[in-house]
């Protein structure tokens, strides 16, 4: 699995960080998404899919 984030689309809702703080973070300065693990290990993949589904601005894309 590969995760791609689009910071131009991101609105900083924090939903992804809440879903899995090991994979997603928010920038201290602008609050936008920071991808910590573009290729998350198996035990974080379900959460990554949830984060992509919940993200309100559809800024997270999952490539299988």
């Amino acid at each position: 699995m590969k995760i791609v984030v689009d910071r131009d689309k991101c609105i900083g809702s924090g939903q992804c960080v809440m879903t899995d703080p090991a994979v997603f973070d928010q920038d201290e300065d602008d609050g936008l998404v920071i991808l910590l693990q573009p290729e998350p290990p198996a035990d974080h993949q379900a959460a990554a899919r949830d984060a992509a589904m919940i993200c309100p601005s559809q800024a997270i894309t999952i490539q299988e």
Partner: protein
Amino acid sequence: MTRTFPMSRQCPYDPPPDYGRLRESEPVSRVRTWDGTEAWLITRYADSRAVLADRRFSSDSRRPGYPSVSAASAVSRRQMRSFINMDDPEHAHFRRMLISSFTMRQVEALRPRIQSIVDSLVDDILAAGPPVDLVQAFALPLPSLVICELLGVPYADHDRFQAWSRTTINAASTAEQAQRAVTELAGYLGELVDAKDREPGDDLISRLVVNQLRPGHVTRADVVGMARLLLVAGHETTANMIALGTAALLAHPDQLERLRTDPSVVKSSVEELLRYLTITHSGRRRVATEDVTVSGQLISAGEAVIVAGDAANRDPEVFAEPDQLDVARKARQHVAFGYGIHQCLGQPLARVELQVVHGTLYGRIPTLKLAIPAEQLRFKHDMIVYGVHELPVSW
């Protein structure tokens, strides 16, 4: 058939029963609002997310055809527009100035302070003895204190700004009453912005003044508009979620008992009550800028759309047995905070406040109960944000 919107509830905790019928047979249906404006009402979860994420539906309240919620709301949006009624790139310009104050990390850092406010309010309630109106003693002061500290608004002025806020979200307010309330609130916040320009403090309005107003990125009116949105949204919504959520739990004692005795459901109980109650029951408003087809129905450019989040959050396609309150349910995909670029900016703060409340209140007052018969509770049918007017409790 064109129905009148909003429709009537039967049970105070459930959306109008017509929503269920429409979701099944006419998911994009025609409704007429308070001033005769016709709009398309969206009741399915998938359609709601699709519309709210689609840039072809505008949030700009100045567009012809935009369906305002009430006379009061039309006035306040005309007079003090904020980024919830703008489209990108204008919307993003303002929203991005605020995001860094509402990140998960920033808000988590407030958790100890929020816990100490909750603890001291509960101390006061216990000291006062029953009966106590939980709205005035707890639900309203908590988010008001938190947002005042964050913005740098003196809490001592809460009677004034809460009254102005109530007038603007009361669908029964006249245009004149709303006009006066909006003008007075804008005047109050304008003076506060000027005071912070003379002497900035360590608060959000001061940061906007120093980082955005002084270099000319925004106008004084823009700062006032942002302050007003955060102040009003920051206390009205959370206060109603606390009071109505408590009322709903008291009406479902098995769920309250589960929450009181099992700390592992505190977070999910917050999400479930957000889903189940969806207090923003007046719908998310949009106007189509192009022809768009939703669930087979053509919505033409210029037509108004109302997304009924409360209907979407009871969609059985997404939530099994949606009319059951289940504090252990995994409900985080609800649309109670909206969806798309306008999803609530303050949701991390709302979540932490509600989590602290749910993790504290029912444990510290384990025998909490209504002090009046349930059928005497007065629900906020007329208000743009749903809730209870008072919640008399004893223990």
